[in-house]
């Protein structure tokens, strides 16, 4: 982003922020975790969403951020059975044997 565009963006946000109470990018950034967890107050949530409507940069950022969280979940390894690793049989035997030597339930 060139210098003029940055200045223009900065001024635009401050004008909108002052006249409409819009969040800055920094403020919106701090609310992203709570936004995705639906933990923002309705008033703050509305301001956050207003910001997204007016800021394509933060809107794109949030889309990628959300996809990142989703991909982390969906791609987590080890994969589910039957493809994922299994507990070694020797470990299973050791656990069962250890239990026999452990104190009984209290």
């Amino acid at each position, binding site marked *: *982003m060139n210098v003029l565009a940055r200045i223009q963006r900065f001024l635009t946000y401050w004008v909108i922020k002052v006249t409409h109470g819009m969040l800055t*990018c*920094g403020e919106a*950034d*701090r609310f*992203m*975790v*709570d936004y*995705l*967890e639906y933990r923002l107050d309705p008033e703050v949530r509305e301001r956050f969403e207003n910001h997204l409507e007016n800021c*394509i*940069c*933060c809107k*794109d*950022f949030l*889309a*990628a*951020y*959300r*996809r*990142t*969280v*989703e*991909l*982390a*979940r*969906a*791609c*987590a*390894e*080890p*994969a*589910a*059975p039957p493809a*994922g*690793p*299994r*507990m*070694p049989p020797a*470990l*299973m035997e*050791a*656990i*069962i044997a*250890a*239990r*026999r030597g*452990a*104190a*009984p*339930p*209290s």
Partner: protein
Amino acid sequence: MEYATAANMDAAATHESPAEEAALIAALKRGEDAAFVTLVQRYGDYLYRVALRVTRNETEAGEAVQEAFISTFRGIARFESRSALRTWLHRLVVNAALMRRRAVERKAEVSIEDLAPEVDLEREPQPEWNFTESVETQAARDGVRRAVNEAIDRLPEQYRILIVLRDIEGYDTREVAQMLDDTEGNVKVRLHRARTALKRQLEPLYRAKAI
């Protein structure tokens, strides 16, 4: 954002009816040897995978699973069926794995600054990013799975563990804070940074026709 994940697909694999679970718990409380064997056979693989995700180490994961099962045996009398047995076991193995992880925690911390600067507001519109493909379709490709897991592994440990506990294992922020003996505020700040760092690494996947 609820959909099939490795963690909950793993969980589904151990699903049993409430009646079966109640019978197993009752037998465990009576101290029946066969019930403990059933418990280990039914949940062993599931808990081992959870422990592997937390520790990234087969030996530590095995020890965490063993510890979790012994804790189960010792504490089953106090188990109240307000939560599912699987949920209780999951928490036990995560706690055991976190303890193991602390014991072998890395010698040198990696800075996250290179992956995600603390103040990162130099954003630009990204018209070439494309999210029309479903997460499931994208995640089904081996190249994507590998890239995502390698990117998670590259995160400094104190950030990686937040992605694992919050985004993969599904604990909420308050629970993660309790597990890590930290404040909820700190967890949120670090989680955001961890996700931002991960996002940066994955941006090539978000460009249209990337893979």
